């Protein structure tokens, strides 16, 4: 290999590409407009971080020093200005961002999904069971309410942080408000429960009045006493 060979000349290739940028349109007084920017930043810090920003100064008449002051004030807020638009070329010095022309309007669609991603998915506060809960099964859901569309079999168990709703017969055990939620209740279409408990206070099948059996009922806490009453 010949090390002294002259390097081949590379052609400089230019490509056109357009990007979407935020356009700021400052209004007078500039101090008031900056306060608005501050308010936006207070609501969502880092909203403009990493996003290209263009200053459109067509609505205001600013001197060269005023423009550089404005760019510096934005820089202080971690907003880097990519370019300036709508101003006489004479007002722009080499230390300022370059003058841009020919910008087109577009909708900032890509911002929405980014915002949604940033928010953590809210934790579900209820659990829906579409099938009957069979004998021997244990459903534990401490984050909120449990709703059962079928029946809860004898020997089955439902434990909920919130209330328990059973749209069939409740023949097993139901424990509501296990995290100390004394406002939790237990509702069922047909009460044949082995045990009902709310926030640690409980009643067994023996304590449940025979007149309630097989009827729609609810259980709630009245102070330290569990009450069971028919629904409607």
């Amino acid at each position, binding site marked *: 290999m010949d090390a002294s060979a002259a390097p081949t000349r590379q052609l400089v290739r230019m490509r056109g590409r357009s990007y979407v940028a935020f356009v700021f349109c400052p209004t007078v007084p500039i101090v008031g407009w900056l306060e608005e920017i501050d308010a936006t930043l207070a609501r969502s810090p880092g909203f403009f971080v990493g996003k290209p920003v263009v200053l459109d100064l067509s609505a205001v008449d600013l001197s060269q020093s005023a423009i550089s002051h404005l760019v510096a004030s934005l820089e202080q807020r971690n907003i880097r200005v990519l370019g300036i638009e709508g101003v006489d070329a004479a007002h722009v010095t080499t230390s300022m961002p370059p003058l841009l022309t020919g910008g087109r309007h577009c909708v900032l669609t890509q911002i929405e999904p980014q915002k949604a991603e940033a928010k953590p998915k809210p934790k579900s506060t209820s659990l829906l069971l579409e099938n009957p809960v*069979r*004998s*021997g099964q244990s459903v534990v859901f401490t984050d909120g309410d449990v709703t059962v569309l*079928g*029946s809860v079999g*004898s*020997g089955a168990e439902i434990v909920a942080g919130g209330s328990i709703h059973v749209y069939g*017969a409740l*023949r097993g055990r139901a424990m509501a408000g296990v995290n100390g939620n004394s406002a939790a209740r237990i509702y069922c279409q047909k009460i044949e429960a082995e045990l009902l408990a709310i926030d640690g206070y409980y009643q067994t099948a023996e304590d449940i009045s025979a007149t309630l059996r097989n009827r729609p009922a609810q259980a709630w806490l009245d102070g330290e006493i569990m009450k069971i009453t028919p629904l409607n």
Partner: protein
Amino acid sequence: MAKVLVVTSGKGGVGKTTSTAALGAALAQLGEKVVVVDFDVGLRNLDLVLGAERRVVFDLINVVQGVAKLSQALIRDKRLENLWLLPASQTRDKDALTEEGVRSIIADLRTKFDWILCDSPAGIERGATLAMRYADEAVIVTNPEVSSVRDSDRIIGMLDSKTVKAEKGERVEKHVLITRYDSARAARGEMLSIEDILEILAIPLLGIIPESQDVLRASNVGSPVTLNNAASAPARAYIDAVRRLMGETVTMMVPVERKGLMNRLLGRRAA
């Protein structure tokens, strides 16, 4: 397409083995090629009910462990040429069953038979879970009494969670077969009613088998009731159940005891 059907109940003594034999024989009588597999390792009974106990050479465990070939362990029924038995081992226990062994046997049987009926042992342990593991359908045998119904409910929960089908997100088709139903006692409120059982279990009814001396008599002579006395009430109920399994629509008959004149005159004797 072969179907694997598990006959199960949770509770013991409700009639799983009797029902497996009766359903298997009835399917074979209707021309289907059937094998009944005894999963009750250590407490085998299905060979007795089918009258094949004196011809057992190899068993399920031998096949699982590779000691014998499947064809060597299969016993053909002497009366029905479509009916085969894969007996359990009496000298071993359920720990001798492996999931992989059961899987390969069931896969092998699927290529040879139309119906594979698995007679599950009582309980919810290894034997019962392996018997239901590869099932496509399940017959849950229930007596009209609270303990049996609750145990059946437990088994249904396991069918919905511990079978291969359930783990794949599919459903095991489930049917309830009510056995030892005594219409007179049910009328007096001494038994759970059919409606109560179906309301608790919330699965379709396959059949109602009346309490009958014919069942005991058939078991004692080593013949499935559907074969021993096909005209008897329990045999007819089993045959109807099998026709429903095969997809036919058959009107459900609630067996009513026909009392003789003398019986009626004398009233019911103490049971």
